[in-house]
Structures are given as structure tokens and as C-alpha cells.
């Protein structure tokens, strides 16, 4: 036990003497949050949409009101009213507007009669993200007007109605927070634990402690524990700061904090152990540098932190099934945004636990105690 503590203390002391590493591990995820959060949000603001209301009846009025509410509230779109359908359509074609919504003159009448009321939506398909957003917004507005059976006819073809929560309180910026916390954990797991072993090996310092009675388990678990300590501290700090930055109001019960703690700790342990398996025998820091960029992309983007796992193609979905970061993101999203309790993220936690256990066993097994 004293030996294990000595390994941990040595590692923590060395980390403390390198404040630049600490500063970078904290700053980088936060900068990432601000850059990604704002660049994606920029695209989704003030998209110009032309509305041609040929009906001017009670029901069409309500649809337009709903759209105006979106324009005034989240500001996803701005609305330009027009009388002439042709002028509106050519405006979309020329690129002046992102979309044109045409409400036909028989709209209110059809709604009242319940005889297949429909509206026409002409989208500028060249910009995928904005056209998708507008479609969702318009569908939401039509639904929210209480006219449930209206179909939105898109110029490009048939449109499926979707259940969209138009007035959700979670904006994109906030939804990035779990991902940023996971990224902080990844960075921490990358720069502590096994990486210190690689550095010692590179500098030839490993020889000095391989000569002592320290066992494989002492060395591996000591480095993992010190890495865990540093990384969870950073991750919690990032979580709190990014919640403040993005304005997530979250008054958790103790049980939820336990769940958050469990997810963060297990994810950290799992990634630290995984790094031991992957770079446990590497002897040059440059290899770690290359691997870290690669692993970050491989694990982070398919984690659901930026795009929902649900919209991945099948093969990528099955990768998300084994990706520990996907479980971590899912659990944090559920707790932070849906107010889930410990029990409702237990499947995520169970997976992370299994992942960690397997990786740790393999790590100790794979570690070579000779030079």
C-alpha cells in the first residue's frame, strides 16, 4: 500500500510541477465549447423565410403567428411577408431567401372541413443544415397552431411529419456541454496515466523504478489512480464552468450528483485503462501525439456529443454501441437535460463499468516489466 501511494504521489508531484499542462487541459475544452458552440449557432440564426399567406383566414393567421414567435424568440428565422407567390419563389431560387412558405387560399376552409389541408414549402436545398432547420421550424409552427392534420408539401417531394419540440429549452450551445466534459476527460486520460510511462521510458527513467520491488500492478494502478484524481478534478471544473457559460440551470438532487460523479469517474477510469492497453508499450511521445489526434476523432465525433447517434448510418451506430464516450455522453445528457435519476442511466453506467474492468485487466496483463 505504501508503495502504491508512493507511485501516486510521485506522479502527482510531477504533474503539479508542470502548470502549463494543467492550464491547457482546462482551457482547451472550454475554448472548444465556445468555438464549436458559436460557429454552429451562427448558421442557425436569422435564416430568411418568405411567407405568402393567400388565405388570410383564422388558421393561416395562427401559423404565421407561431413563426413570428420563433423569429422573435430563438431567432432561428426572420420572416418576410409577400403577396406574390412567383416573386417569392424566384427570390428563393436567386438565393435571397432560404425558403418560401405558401399558404393556399383554401387553407382555413380545409382545416375547418378536415379535408386534407396543406401548405407548400419551397426550400433552398443547397444548404442542408439550414433547410433542415427551416423545415423542422415550419412543421412545428403548423402543428402548434392546433391544426393537427396539415401536411407540409415540400417542393422536393413528400414530407414526413415529425414530432419536434419546437420550444425546447435546450439550445445547441448547452447540448454541447456533456461532449465538452467528455473531451476534457479524454484529454486528461491522454496526458496522464500511461503517457507518463511513455515519457519515463523515452527519457530512460523507467529503468530506475523497474529495478525496485514495485510490481506491475503497483505501477499500472498507481499511474491510473493519479491520472484519475487529476482528470476527474478537471472534468468537474469544466462541467461547472461550461454550465455557467451556457446558462444551464440545473438544481440536481443528491442522487443525480452521485450519477454524474459515477459517470465521470468511470469514464475516466475506462479511458485511462484503455490508454494503457493502447500505448502501454510505446516508447516515443510522438507516437502518442499521433494516436491522440486519431483517437479523439474516432471516439468523440461518433459519441453523440455533436450529432445525435440516432441519425448515424447503421455501421456507425454499431460502433457507438461499443464506444465508451457514447455511453458517457448519453448518461450526462439524460441527467442534465432530462433530469434522469441514477436508476435511469444505470445501463450506461453498467457498460462503462464493464469496459473499465476489462481494460484494466488487459492493461496489467499487457504491461511489460522489462526494459
Amino acid at each position, binding site marked *: 500500500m*505504501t*508503495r502504491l*501511494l*508512493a*507511485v501516486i*504521489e*510521485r506522479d502527482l*508531484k*510531477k504533474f503539479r*510541477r*508542470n502548470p502549463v499542462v494543467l492550464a491547457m487541459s482546462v482551457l482547451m475544452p472550454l475554448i472548444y465549447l465556445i468555438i464549436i458552440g458559436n460557429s454552429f449557432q451562427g448558421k442557425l440564426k436569422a435564416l430568411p423565410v418568405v411567407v405568402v399567406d393567400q388565405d388570410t383566414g383564422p388558421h393561416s393567421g395562427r401559423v404565421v403567428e407561431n413563426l413570428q414567435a420563433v423569429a422573435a424568440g430563438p431567432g432561428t428565422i426572420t420572416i418576410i411577408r409577400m403577396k406574390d407567390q412567383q416573386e417569392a419563389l424566384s427570390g428563393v431560387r436567386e438565393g435571397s431567401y432560404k425558403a418560401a412558405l405558401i399558404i393556399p387560399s383554401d387553407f382555413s376552409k380545409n382545416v375547418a372541413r378536415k379535408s386534407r389541408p396543406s401548405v407548400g414549402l419551397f426550400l433552398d436545398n443547397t444548404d442542408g443544415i439550414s433547410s433542415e432547420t427551416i423545415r423542422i421550424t415550419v412543421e412545428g409552427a403548423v402543428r402548434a397552431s392546433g391544426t393537427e392534420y396539415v401536411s407540409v408539401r415540400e417542393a422536393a417531394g413528400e414530407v414526413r411529419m415529425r414530432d419536434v419540440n419546437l420550444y425546447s429549452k435546450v439550445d445547441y450551445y448547452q447540448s454541447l456541454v456533456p461532449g465538452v466534459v467528455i473531451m476534457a476527460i479524454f484529454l486528461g486520460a491522454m496526458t496522464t496515466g500511461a503517457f507518463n510511462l511513455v515519457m519515463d521510458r523515452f*527519457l*530512460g*527513467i523507467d*529503468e*530506475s*523504478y*523497474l*529495478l*525496485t*520491488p*514495485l*510490481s506491475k500492478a503497483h505501477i499500472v494502478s498507481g499511474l491510473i489512480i493519479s491520472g484519475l484524481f487529476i482528470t476527474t478534478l478537471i472534468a468537474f471544473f469544466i462541467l461547472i464552468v461550461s454550465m455557467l457559460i451556457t446558462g444551464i440551470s440545473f438544481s440536481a438532487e443528491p442522487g443525480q450528483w452521485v450519477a454524474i460523479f459515477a459517470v465521470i469517474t468511470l469514464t475516466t477510469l475506462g479511458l485511462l485503462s484503455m490508454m494503457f492497453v493502447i500505448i502501454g*508499450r510505446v*516508447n516515443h511521445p510522438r507516437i502518442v501525439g499521433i494516436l491522440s489526434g486519431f483517437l479523439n476523432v474516432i471516439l468523440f465525433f461518433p459519441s453523440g456529443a455533436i450529432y445525435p447517434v440516432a441519425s448515424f448510418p447503421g455501421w456507425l451506430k454499431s460502433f457507438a454501441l461499443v464506444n465508451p464516450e457514447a455511453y458517457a455522453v448519453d448518461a450526462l445528457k439524460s441527467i442534465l437535460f432530462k433530469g434522469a435519476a441514477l436508476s435511469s442511466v444505470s445501463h450506461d453506467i453498467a457498460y462503462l463499468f464493464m469496459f473499465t474492468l476489462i481494460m484494466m485487466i488487459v492493461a496489467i496483463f499487457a504491461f511489460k516489466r*522489462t*526494459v
Partner: protein
Amino acid sequence: MQGNKAIEVSGLTKTFGTLTAVDNVSFDVSEGEFFGFLGPNGAGKTTLIRILTTLLKPTSGGAVVACCDVARHPERVRHEIGVVPQAMTSDLDLTGYENMDIYGRFYGMPAKERKERTGYLLDLVGLTQRANDLVAAYSGGMRRRLEIARGLVHRPKILFLDEPTIGLDPQSRQNIWGFLKKLMEGDRMTVFLTTHYMEEAEELCGRIAIIDSGKIVVIGSPEELKGRLPGNDSIVLTVDNITQDLIAKVEKLPFVHKSSVEENKIRVSVDSGANNLPGLIDEARSSGAKVLSASIHEQSLEDVFIHYTGKSIREEEAKKVSFLVGAGIPRKWGR
């Protein structure tokens, strides 16, 4: 127990691919002995120490160190030995004191004993003043002294030193020799040292083995080895042009025992060199050679080395670029 043997090596061989780094080596070291391995670059000194200190598994043969077989009970052997590897291995981000203290904890030493021992050793190696500075701020010599002290913190029965003064200036070297000798007076410890410095082997070791290309060439005390050489002085003549005629003539002289040639130098072993130097120079001139310089010295381990291996260890030394490269790089090749 094993009588009073500290190290027993028999038929030890280590190969890396097709290269035999240690070739069927056998020797014993008694308890309390200061034993040296003398050999040039690449002779296999570090490889041998790595096997004896459990870092490498031998290809064949075996070694018993302190208590047990190194391949069968490495963890028990590790408890009994202290090692100072060839490359610098202290932690740059820790202070000198922390380096020692953490090391003591790796051996499970209690706090009080660690403190006393660290204080004593830091004093011995003259680092008490700098104990709380980061090792990053140490000079090479200071770092080396710290590492030797660190290797002693847990009172090992056997201390292994792999080229302890490599890359250091003569003053630091003297300093290290000084406290190694002082240490030997105090603790009755066995020391196993490798070096390619003749003076170091001569100054410190009770017995040495000369190793070349992985093989032990000869073992004995420095006096014994020198005594086995024919003659008692060594003369080196530098001439403008070495000819077969010159060599033949020189070797025929009655007081000359042996000669060897390096570039434009001819080295001969002679009896009473001071009296015979003029005769040797005359003989060289008579064969038409121009003598540029002559030097004469008592025979040393250098001459022993040349006698047994046919080459000078100093040539090798000149090729040694950096003490860090010595042990840091080649071991990676095997993986």
C-alpha cells in the same frame, strides 16, 4: 546459504537476434568484494548488468545474485540490490530529496529510517545544500552523485554501478571515487562496477574482469594482471613511417618482449624502460625511421587490455559520443 558468494554467474549468454551481446560468461564475486568489469563500447557490460539486476532475461545460463536466481525470483533479488544504471534516471521534476524519499518508499522503508538514511547519504555525496532544488537544476555530476546515493537508500547488500563516472570531468570523477571508497569502509557491501576507464578500475576494484565482444578475456586483481605481462614498462615511439623492417628489428632487441602497432605508433613492452629507451631509439633510426616522439610509462591496465585484446580501449573511448546514448538508445531496437 551460498557460502560467502554474493554473485555467481555460470555460462550466461544473451543474444539479440544474431548478435551475441554476452557470450557464455562465468565468474563469482565474494561478499564484500569490489569487483569491476572493464571493457570498451558494446562489450556487453550494460547487458550483463541488466541481466544481473533482473531487467533482462538471459538467453541461456544463469546467475544467482544475493539470494536467488535472477530469472526465477527476480522480485526477491530486487529487494537485495541497489542499482545505478548507465543512463541518468533521476526524476527531473522532483527535488533531490524527493527522489531519494520516493525511492525509499518503493522499497517499503519506514518514514523515520528514510529520513535518516537520506540525510546521511546526501551529506556523503555533498548534496545537502541542494537537496531541495529540482534535479532539473543539477549539473551532470550532481545528478550522478544523487543517483548513486539513491541506489544506496535501502541499504542494499550489493550495489551495481554501470559506468558511474561516464561523461564527467576528472574532478567529479575523483569526488565520486572518494565517497565510494569511504562507503566501502563503512558498510560491508559488495560492489559490482563496470567501466571503460582504466584508472577507475585500478583505483577502486579489488578484482577486475576484462570483457570484450561479450566474452571474459581475463580475471584477476589489477596487480596480478599487470604482473602477468612480460616486462614492466611500456614505451611508445611515434615515427614518420612504420616499416616491416623496423618492426622486425625492434622485436629482435633482447630487452623487448612484445610490440604492437597503431597508426604511426609502435608500442613495446620492455624491462627497465628508462635504461633501454636510447637503445630502442638508435635501433629505430638505424632502420631509416625518423622518431618524432617517445614516451615511457609503467605498465598499466591499459597495457593489460592491449595485451589480451590486441587493441587500445582509448580508441573506443574516443568514439563514445554521449553518455546518454550509451544505454538509452540501443535497447529499443530489440522490440
